């Protein structure tokens, strides 16, 4: 316990140097801005900024990236409340009640409860990360390749089969990502696969390229194709402020949201959709009778406070599997993993030993970042709202320029820019036919890692498949995967019968 406290203090010492504070502030401000603006999410922004890993030292850039990741969550709720166009899946639920609140003239209260709720949840969740991550890391050292492979398999299953509308389309997206991950040189034998003789494919398909193509460029194309005439109406802003009753109604929702969000972020079950919806349902059920009728009509403050807290808590908790197991459970976490790989740092149980200074500075910066974001988002919220006045055409055209920097700056190859366009077309088609995009990225990043773990596991078992069943932990994980796949079907079948 004392040990953790000492290391955390050491982390604060690193994170609170003027340079690192500046990086944190830059990250938080940029994150809030891109969270507010449509068309750019935290994943793409971090992806586009990955070239800076060549120049900036690891701790500073991880603090910067974490600030962006966090800031985008704060900024995203502002857009949800004022415009009803949630930029992030996690803020979808916020839009349900928040937009209605804003419509009936309570935009300020909705913005305040979401910013303060995010702060409360973010801080609590960071405390939990501080306490649990080191223990989990110690435990994770005992895991072998079979367990790792099963964990990754679980991540694949949940991200593709459970989230989203259709298991089939989710799986198709996942295998598309896995297929992209196959391109290049095989890690174990050095065998060249699927390059088709193209030199550029030797190093594999860059994650940045796929993320920028599938998200940013495809968003621009989709807007030109389909969204040109969609009109969005903006709600009137007023001062971010809550009455005494609103405080009293908000704080239990914040705490419940935090409690619901955290466990979902730590397990490789991907995304913040489930916890935010769960929190919404809980608040709706628990609300006092006189407030219950506000849900879905004039907007209930609990319906904003709970899901916002759940979202931030889940987002913070994704750092636990990322730092201790090296398993990303969201797209942005996957890109952060990629950033670490760029530095030659392998995220995993050893991270707490080999790069403990970096890890603790990162955790300390989360505490600092939360305070910064509260300041950036409460008194200064009017500033960010001005960003919403930028017309769409120059905004998306400008995004294309930044996309070029990110993709070209990675490998200095114009071939990548053509590939980016191809992926953007794929992204447009996927969006039109309701295919989820996240499984592609997760498959692409985790695929090669999972393959390596799988083949190492098979080597341990000397070519026998029994290795996955004989070890108690990996067998348990396999059972969990089976349950995750079967339960929803049984429930659906049961409901129909």
């Amino acid at each position, binding site marked *: 316990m004392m040990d953790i406290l000492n290391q955390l203090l050491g982390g604060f010492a690193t994170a609170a140097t003027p340079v690192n504070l500046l990086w944190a502030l830059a990250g938080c401000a940029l994150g809030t801005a891109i969270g507010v603006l449509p068309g750019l999410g935290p994943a793409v922004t971090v992806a586009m900024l990955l*070239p*800076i890993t*060549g*120049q900036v030292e690891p701790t500073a850039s991880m603090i910067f990236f974490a600030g962006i990741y966090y800031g985008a969550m704060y900024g995203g709720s502002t857009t949800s409340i004022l415009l009803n166009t949630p930029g992030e899946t996690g803020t979808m639920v916020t839009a349900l009640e928040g937009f209605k609140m804003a419509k009936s003239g309570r935009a300020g209260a909705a913005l305040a409860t979401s910013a303060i709720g995010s702060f409360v949840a973010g801080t609590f969740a960071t405390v939990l990360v501080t306490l649990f991550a080191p223990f989990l890391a110690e435990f994770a050292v005992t895991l072998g390749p079979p367990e790792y492979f099963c964990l990754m398999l679980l991540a694949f299953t949940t991200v593709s089969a459970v989230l989203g509308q*259709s298991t*089939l*389309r989710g*799986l*198709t997206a996942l*295998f*598309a990502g*896995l*297929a992209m991950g*196959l391109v290049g040189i*095989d890690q*174990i*034998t050095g*065998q060249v*696969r699927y390059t*088709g003789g193209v030199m550029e494919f030797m190093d594999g398909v860059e994650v940045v390229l796929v993320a920028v193509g599938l998200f940013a*460029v495809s968003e*621009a*194309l*989709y*807007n*030109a*194709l*389909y*969204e*040109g*005439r*969609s009109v969005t109406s903006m709600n009137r802003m007023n001062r971010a402020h809550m009455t005494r009753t609103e405080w009293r109604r908000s704080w239990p929702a914040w705490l419940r949201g935090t409690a619901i969000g955290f466990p979902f972020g730590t397990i490789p079950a991907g995304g913040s959709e489930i916890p935010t919806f769960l929190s919404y349902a809980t608040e709706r059920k628990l609300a006092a009778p006189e407030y219950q009728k506000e849900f879905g009509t004039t907007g209930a403050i609990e319906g904003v406070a709970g899901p916002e807290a759940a979202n931030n808590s889940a987002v913070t908790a994704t750092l636990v599997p990322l730092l201790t197991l090296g398993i990303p459970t969201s797209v942005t976490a996957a890109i952060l993993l990629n950033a670490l790989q760029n530095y030659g740092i392998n995220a995993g149980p050893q991270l707490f030993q080999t790069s403990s200074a970096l890890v603790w500075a990162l955790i300390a910066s989360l505490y600092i970042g939360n305070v910064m974001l509260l300041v950036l988002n409460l008194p200064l919220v009017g500033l960010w709202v001005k960003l919403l006045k930028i017309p*769409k*055409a*120059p905004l998306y*055209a*400008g995004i*294309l*320029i*930044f996309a*070029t*920097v990110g993709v*070209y*700056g990675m490998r*200095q190859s*114009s071939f990548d*820019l*053509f590939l*980016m366009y191809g992926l*953007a077309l794929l992204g447009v088609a996927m969006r*039109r*036919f*309701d295919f989820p995009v996240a499984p592609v990225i997760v498959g692409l990043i985790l*695929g090669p890692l999972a393959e390596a773990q799988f*083949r190492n596991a*098979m*080597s341990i078992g*000397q*070519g*026998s498949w029994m290795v996955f069943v004989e070890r108690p932990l990996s067998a348990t994980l396999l059972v969990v995967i089976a349950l995750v796949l079967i339960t929803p079907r049984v429930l659906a079948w049961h409901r129909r019968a």
Partner: protein
Amino acid sequence: MGLAALAVAGLLAWGAAAIPSDAGYAGVGPDFLPWVVCVAMAICGALLVWEAVTGGYRDMEEPSGAPRGDWHAMAWVSAGVLGNAALITTIGFILSCALCYVLAVRGLRISEGKAGGGLMQVVRDVVTGMLIAAPTYWLFTKVLAVSLPGLTATGWI
């Protein structure tokens, strides 16, 4: 989409066949996962085609936006991205990106139902594009030492 998935599966099979299955201790070689992905892709593709033929995809969420695509606007934006890809090494980052901006902003404006704009608008777009591209270029090349192509060797354009 289903047919595309089937095509990818075919491509994967063709490629997988070319990978030697030198397995070593593990009993599975570098060609194992490619075959798994290939078979899975084929199954998914077949199921997608089946769904599409028998009454469309299941549990579809209504896509947002207009029912028909504005291909004219799309062509302008595409021209911007592809032109940028083709020209970036010859005319340099700033000019190429400004061109991309001009073409894309025109396309997006057309999609909004406004006129593409006359000569004055184009000039204004060129200036805006340069104003975004140039500082970005300087920031990334000078401060962050990311190498981006220039028209001249001076490092300023």
